[in-house]
């Protein structure tokens, strides 16, 4: 397990060229505002916390008045809600799900178990720190947090998105080696996902100095190449 602790590392902000067009900034701000007011969430019912999401979504607390709605597949979603302890078997699926989401994407860890294992700290079956495997924007602690707490947490995330501070998804590209290393530690060196994170980082110019490293070398050595898809109807 790599020892670097990423919780305090900031994403290195690329210097943005000053644009003379005043509307460029307006447009960016509009998009950030819309991002914060329209959040499609994919709630992966990894654990107990999932039971407090239906109350938060339905008639009594009604998340939709804040523009939050549940979505069905990772491609459509912006927020990945990890609702509770993540067993190792689930963690694999969580990572697959996370990588399939389109950026900007945000992760919220609900329940104490995602922070530090919670009351299952002794358990051989659950992963303890979620942010070793995927970057987490926000934790909502509690066992389990009440719907009010969930909505409060989502509102905090909204505030962060509005000011463009919720950038943890960039951390995944920039420090991919670290996350991959932790994943390999748990799942073995044969671990690979169908999403080409390094390729994506290159395409969208999100590469950092730590994107590649010893763990990605292991990945490259075991990776089966992705074949192009034939068109069919």
């Amino acid at each position, binding site marked *: 397990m790599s020892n670097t602790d990423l919780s305090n590392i900031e994403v290195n902000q690329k210097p943005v060229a000053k644009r003379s067009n005043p509307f460029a900034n307006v447009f960016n701000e*509009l*998009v950030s*505002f*819309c*991002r914060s*007011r*329209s959040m*499609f969430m994919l709630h992966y019912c990894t654990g107990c916390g999932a039971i407090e999401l239906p109350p938060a979504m*339905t*008639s*009594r607390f*009604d998340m*939709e*008045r804040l*523009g939050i709605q549940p979505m*069905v*597949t*990772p*491609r*459509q979603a*912006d927020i990945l809600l990890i609702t509770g302890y993540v067993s190792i078997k689930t963690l694999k699926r969580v990572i697959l799900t996370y990588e*399939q*989401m*389109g*950026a*900007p994407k945000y992760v919220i860890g609900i329940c104490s178990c995602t922070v530090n294992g919670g009351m299952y700290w002794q358990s051989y079956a659950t992963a303890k720190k979620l942010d070793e495997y995927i970057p987490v924007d926000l934790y909502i602690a509690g066992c389990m947090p009440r719907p009010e707490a969930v909505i409060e947490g989502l509102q905090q995330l909204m505030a962060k998105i509005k000011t463009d501070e919720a950038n943890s998804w960039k951390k995944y590209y920039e420090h991919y080696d670290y996350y991959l290393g932790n994943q390999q530690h748990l799942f073995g060196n044969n671990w690979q996902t169908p999403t080409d994170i390094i390729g*994506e980082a290159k395409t*969208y110019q999100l590469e950092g100095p730590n994107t590649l490293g010893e763990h990605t070398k292991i990945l490259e050595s075991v990776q089966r190449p992705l074949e192009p*898809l034939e*068109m*069919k*109807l």
Partner: protein
Amino acid sequence: MQVTLLTIMEVILMPIVAFIIGLFMVLMMRKLAARLQRRVGPPLFQPLFDIVKLYGKQTQISHGMIHDIGIIMAVGGYVAAEALLPVPGMDGIAAKGGLITLAYLTMVPSLGLALGVGQCANPNGSIGISRALTSMLAYDIPFIIVIFGVAYQFSSTNLVDIIATQQAGGFSTWGISEMPVLAVAGLFAMHASLGKQPFEIYIAPAEIATGPMVEMGGKFLGGLFVMQSFQLYTASVLYVSLFLGGGENWITFLLKSFGVLAIPVVIAYLFPRYRTDDLVRLVWKWPVMLALIGIAFVMN
């Protein structure tokens, strides 16, 4: 020359108007659902926020050229259809197009979607699109019969003429009072074409995880959201033009089209969905029968 310029202006303006009205129709749909479900519902500009956000995504996951083209076809089909749908003050190219072209154009989006989804190679998407085409096959038959009946009644396939005839005679010459049976069949077909419960077989989250939308993210999903607002607009405005005398002015036009749309939307949130075969059986039985009876009345 002046007329042509005006027409071009109208052709550009009409889809924009349609889009804006469509957004409010989406909002109305979600608000109605919220009221039925005893909650508040989304804020006023929620549909717009969703679309802007989806287009502002920073990584767009495409599955290839056909995937892109499919979405463009899906939206483009409706954009073209809007220019053929007269609204108060703007006729666009409705007088030249006519009903038959419109009926064809409303099928283009489904086919475009089928192309795009086929490229994704997701089994859920493939099942979804095959269901969507099945349901299109089902509702198109009563839809075409209804259109034929209306054209026979008004002896024209020109929407401008049809609306003018209805407006000239007042309520007694509206399609709904001249051919009530056809109007009911038309409502059925319109509801089925919207793909809402009980005809929502191709989205079906619990069965096939939203079917055609399953691999769509970012601007592709945004495209589908735009398509949805066009779809609501097209269906309700077409119904208003055929049976409710179109819009004399903007106020009655909006009242009629929102009112017509409210009927299927309210029904949608009170019923579960049919199974695929049940849907085909139902749609081929009742709306088709009603439409045929209606046509028999019309031809008398």
